[in-house]
């Protein structure tokens, strides 16, 4: 069976786009072939900085013949109908149609249309240029003289050549005949930009099929497979580190990027002056990583070493001496800059050290003053960064009170939380925000809990990020997120669909994790209402709503629903099905996330027991009957059952059990002992089962029937102490 080899050779493709481009190429081509009935045995796609390549193995040489029978008019039909039939079926005369007779319909014409399978080569020639022309690059461009014309070809960078060969292993493959954007497909590729010539490939290299393509590229100093390049880099880097008694600080993102910057990885080690190690290790790493795309190394004790790993693209005759020297020079310059920032940030600022109102301030406080003075805007409707700091301080004070953190430290940390935004270091490396605040605060003698909170208040940043646990950190982390959420809610900038430009979902998840992982009792609605910015409230007065007997803003309520949605996603990932969560949330007024989760957990545990399953079935049965009968009667049976009307032993027993279970469950819920509440409900299983076994609800006596329905409502009501069982599936 023949194979396809496709290579699109261009100028350097951004590293971050290569892997996705290879995957896209594979799925677009294979999907197009499958759509035309061409199945294949296997496919793979690869990328280097200068090419994306695709191999599809085991394609048929020719597509399957298609035979279609098309029913026509009956024999002797009017000429117009016959002509229409001929035209539609592509026949030139009615003699070419067959006559079929049918006992019911009589004789009629049938056209048999046989489409011979199209040669795969032709299909490829038709499909490939279209895919290439419409390739989904994140950003693409026009180039060269052809770009003067409208509709000119676009590619990620100028496209120079295309290899497209098709054929079986035993024969000389054919070139798929097509052109796109002025490039005609052929069978010539190129090796490494700088080393191919020295390896004996000064010009274009002819290839036949995938096997010899990979092999000849390797001879021409190109390793096609990104993962192999990554493996080489990682192995070499570890070896070089090991030889110096050091350990590589691994960095998957950087590794992937670096592997996308070379066709032939050559790993080298450079060094910088020991004195730079006085700079915080995160800064050194950020500098070397972001600017130089190099790895850092650590010593046995975990401290950074004054060495770095660089990955070059050539084997140089001086064993890389010049390359290392060049990289060292740049790393040195970068670290000098970083050290300059580090030192400058810890000194009073020129404009502030002389001003009467600021000269007494510590350096970090001066940066805060600068942030305020700059009137830099947080969001045009939510005021300046300075105003935001004031809100954070106020909110942190309230949250500290609610969760029992030290209010003085929490408000101090909230005040300084954003001060590092005006430091030189954070200006240069925005990803170091928070961390630099911690370093600078610690250096000027702030309480260690305050310093830690400056770093931690941004956390957790993602599902895998660490959640702060220190009370002061937790307080400021909550304040930061809740201020953001309440603010954007108040100005109606809520996330929609895939759009969440202010990362509000992440902020809400952060709040959820902070609350749950620290076992915090936080009245969310109240705090969110506190967090609503004054200006926004004035700008758009909201309709008040009722929440747990209190009047609150509609934004606080709608924000609570957003938290509930996020909580569902979070709990689903932990193995709780959405209906359990709905069953608890639908009780209403659930703004204590910790209690919601405890209820859900107890409920899940209960429903995993035989008692739970059976009770659930009973409650659902009761609810179903009630729903039907209440609808029929147009009446509600929520009132308590009348003890004097009870007849059967089973209903008497249920009545007694309901009273006891409900009382016990409600008392347990009040104690927040949800396990206890479940145990209380479990006692209902026997009486409920016995009741349904022995008692006819729809008795002839109307009073008796109504009382029994009230008894059923009692079951529903008793279980509502913990959740709305009717919402639970199964």
């Amino acid at each position, binding site marked *: 069976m023949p194979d396809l080899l496709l290579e699109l050779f261009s100028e350097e493709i951004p590293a971050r786009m290569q892997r996705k481009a290879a995957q896209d190429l594979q799925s677009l081509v294979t999907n197009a072939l499958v759509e035309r009935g061409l199945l294949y045995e296997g496919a793979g796609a690869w990328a280097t900085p200068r090419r994306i390549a695709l191999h599809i193995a085991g394609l048929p040489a020719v597509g399957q013949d298609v035979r279609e029978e098309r029913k026509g008019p009956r024999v002797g039909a009017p000429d117009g109908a016959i002509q229409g039939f001929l035209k539609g079926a592509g026949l030139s005369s009615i003699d070419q149609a067959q006559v079929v007779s049918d006992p019911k319909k009589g004789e009629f014409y049938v056209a048999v249309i046989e489409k011979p399978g199209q040669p795969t080569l032709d299909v490829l020639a038709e499909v490939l240029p279209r895919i290439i022309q419409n390739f989904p690059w994140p950003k693409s461009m026009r*180039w060269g003289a052809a770009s003067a014309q409208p509709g000119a070809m676009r590619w990620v960078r100028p496209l120079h050549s295309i290899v497209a060969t098709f054929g079986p292993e035993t024969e000389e493959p054919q070139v798929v005949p097509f052109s796109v954007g002025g490039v005609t497909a052929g069978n010539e590729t190129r090796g490494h930009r700088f080393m191919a010539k020295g390896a004996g490939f000064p010009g274009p290299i002819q290839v036949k099929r995938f096997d010899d393509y990979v092999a000849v590229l390797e001879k021409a100093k190109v390793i096609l497979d990104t993962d192999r390049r990554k493996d080489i880099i990682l192995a070499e880097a570890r070896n070089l580190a090991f030889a110096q008694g050091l350990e590589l600080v691994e960095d998957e993102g950087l590794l992937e990027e670096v592997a996308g*910057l070379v066709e032939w990885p050559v790993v080298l080690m450079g060094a910088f002056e020991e004195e730079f190690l006085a700079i915080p290790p995160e800064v050194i790493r950020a500098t070397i990583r972001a600017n130089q795309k190099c790895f850092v190394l650590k010593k046995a004790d975990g401290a950074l070493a004054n060495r770095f790993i660089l990955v070059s693209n050539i084997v140089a005759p001086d064993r890389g001496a010049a*390359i290392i020297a060049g990289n060292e020079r740049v790393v040195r310059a970068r670290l000098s800059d970083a050290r300059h920032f580090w030192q400058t940030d810890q000194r009073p600022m020129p404009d502030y050290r002389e001003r009467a109102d600021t000269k007494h301030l510590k350096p970090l406080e001066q940066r805060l003053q600068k942030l305020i003075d700059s009137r830099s805007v947080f969001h045009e409707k939510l005021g300046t960064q300075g105003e935001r700091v004031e809100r954070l301080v106020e909110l942190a004070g309230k949250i500290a009170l609610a969760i029992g953190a030290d209010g003085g430290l929490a408000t101090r940390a909230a005040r300084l939380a954003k001060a590092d935004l005006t430091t030189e270091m954070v200006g240069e490396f925005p990803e170091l925000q928070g961390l630099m605040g911690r370093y600078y605060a610690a250096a000027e003698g702030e309480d260690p809990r305050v310093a830690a909170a400056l770093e931690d208040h941004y956390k957790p940043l993602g599902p895998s990020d660490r959640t702060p646990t220190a009370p002061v950190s937790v307080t400021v982390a909550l304040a930061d997120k809740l201020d953001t959420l309440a603010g954007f809610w108040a100005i109606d900038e809520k996330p929609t669909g895939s759009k969440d430009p202010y990362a509000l979902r992440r902020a809400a998840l952060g709040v959820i994790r902070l609350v749950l992982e620290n076992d915090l009792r936080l009245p969310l609605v109240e705090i969110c209402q506190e967090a609503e910015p004054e200006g926004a409230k004035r700008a758009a007065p909201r309709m008040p709503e009722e929440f747990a007997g209190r009047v609150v803003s509609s934004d606080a309520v709608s924000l609570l629903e957003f938290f509930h949605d996020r909580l569902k996603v979070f709990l689903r990932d932990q193995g709780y099905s959405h209906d359990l969560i709905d069953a608890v949330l639908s009780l209403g007024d659930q703004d204590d996330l910790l209690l919601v989760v405890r209820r859900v957990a107890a409920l899940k545990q209960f429903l995993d027991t035989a008692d739970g399953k059976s009770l659930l079935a009973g409650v659902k049965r009761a609810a179903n009957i009630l729903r039907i009968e209440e609808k029929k009667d147009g009446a509600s049976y929520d009132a308590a059952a009348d003890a004097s009307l009870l007849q059967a032993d089973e209903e008497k027993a249920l009545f007694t059990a309901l009273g006891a279970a409900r009382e016990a469950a409600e008392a347990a819920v009040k104690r927040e002992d949800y396990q206890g509440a479940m145990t209380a409900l479990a006692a209902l299983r026997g009486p409920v089962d016995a009741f349904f076994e022995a008692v006819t609800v729809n008795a002839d006596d109307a009073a008796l029937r109504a009382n029994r329905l009230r008894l059923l409502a009692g079951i529903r009501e008793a279980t509502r102490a913990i959740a709305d069982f009717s919402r639970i599936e199964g």
Partner: protein
Amino acid sequence: MTGSDQSSPKRSFQGLILTLHEFWAKQGCVILQPYDMEVGAGTFHPATTLRALGPKPWKAAYVQPSRRPTDGRYGENPNRLQHYYQYQVILKPNPPNLQELYLASLEAIGVDLALHDVRFVEDDWESPTLGAWGLGWECWCDGMEVSQFTYFQQVAGVECAPVAGELTYGLERLAMYVQGVERVYDLNFNGGEGDDKVTYGDVFLQAEQEFSAFNFEYADTDILFRHFADAENECKRLLEAGARADGRHGLAMPAYDQCIKASHAFNLLDARGVISVTERQSYILRVRELAKACGAAWLRTEGGGAAA
């Protein structure tokens, strides 16, 4: 020691410039002199901004002194300068072998491509004030960015048709690399030795000190705000006055000069720290509006390819 040794790019800063001139002249470029106005980058030279627009082929190379007031460090930083030189090459349409030409130019100035690791690292270029963007790379030599390589897609808000290729060499950095010098002020400027040697510091250190003070401390912000407003008004007036009844424009280039002036006044105001973050955006937009209008006017001139 012969004169030609002195003008080797490895020996002198000026030798580097002369070598690049010679290289790009051979490729058919007109070798222009710097534009006689204060600009932030070589791209602002009308030989790039305006000539990148319209259908007419164009090849040019020139040195452009560039001013970035906020980068001033009073002569104390070994790399950062508020005034420095860019070597600018523009080829419209870009030839298919522009990358090879660029690499050959590096070889011409003494970078041995077998010994040094040259890489094209993604860097999409955008100039908010010029309403321009393009795709391309930072060109790295042993981990140091020595050039910017851009395929212009849009300039002054107008799609480039055809696309021009732009190369920008950071001359000081490149010279430091080729001469093996750690501090920009130590660069040998003229290739002389002993008493005959003139360094980059001899030529520019005092200027860096004085202009840093000017940029950060002494530039009169009221005057600068006035300059900005004057240039903006003059630009608009010229754009209006130059528009002829037959559809052509007769004052596109003088109008663009005023756009450059406004841009530089903005840069100085920015360095003085008197423009807030929100205002900053609106100033950038105002300059961009001027640039776009100038680009549109240029397309109505002969140079911009308007039919006679």
